[in-house]
């Protein structure tokens, strides 16, 4: 949970761990729980034709966004992957960034 301290309190590097720890105690590191978009919105059909749905899962470098970042559940990530690969074939979604 402490992997992303850079998003924590905006203290300069000089402030040191002590200040950050104190701040952390007052406001414990809280990150909103990620939910699978497809479960939450009850999207059953992850369709390769629906590039509007797929494109948020294709970041700048055009790699498929990993589950640990998007929060997608395993079932839907599998379906998403298939859909993205089909969409790539039809040039609806890029393989790589130019």
């Amino acid at each position, binding site marked *: 949970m402490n992997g*992303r301290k850079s*998003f*924590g309190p*905006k203290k300069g590097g000089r402030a040191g761990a002590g200040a950050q720890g104190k701040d952390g105690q007052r*406001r414990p590191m*809280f*990150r*909103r729980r*990620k939910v699978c*978009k497809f479960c939450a919105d*009850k999207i*059953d*059909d992850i369709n*390769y*034709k629906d590039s509007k749905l797929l494109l*948020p899962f294709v970041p700048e470098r055009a790699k498929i*966004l990993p589950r640990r*970042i*998007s*929060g997608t559940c395993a079932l839907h990530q599998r379906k998403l992957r298939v859909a993205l690969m*089909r969409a*790539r*074939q*039809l*040039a*609806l*979604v*890029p*393989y*790589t960034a*130019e």
Partner: protein
Amino acid sequence: MTRKYELVYVVSPEASDDQVTDLHNQVEAIVQRFSGSSIEKTDNWGRRRLAYEIGRHKEGTYVLEVINGTGELMKEIDRRIKVTDLIIRHLVVRVDEAQGVIERTKAARSATSQRRRVARGLPADRQPGEGQRGDADDDRDDRFDMGMDRDRDRDRGVDR
């Protein structure tokens, strides 16, 4: 064994509208040659930008055909498309099984929700005007939130 397939093909942007219709007619002709098969739906998505260059093309006309037919038919269509220079990309996907799965999940979900609602003493179907609290104001897309919002909220003094 009749199955349902989707065929999407991307026609070169140099092709005229007539040529696109002609390609559709060619596909239709092959479908009609095989007995028991039919075109369920045709959809021309029009000219779209390609996500990457194919050859030297940056755009293409997308056409979707939903075809009921056998694997043999699709094989023949696939072969014909491969030798057609005007079509720069195509994809054939079998969809009947996936559609069945989707319908079953939908049915299962509505059955569960009805059962639960009845168990709570509510009418089985959702009434108009009934909704979950916070449904409307949580439409912001925060899937990729990694704490930036929290920082911003704190700076603004928003209490969550």
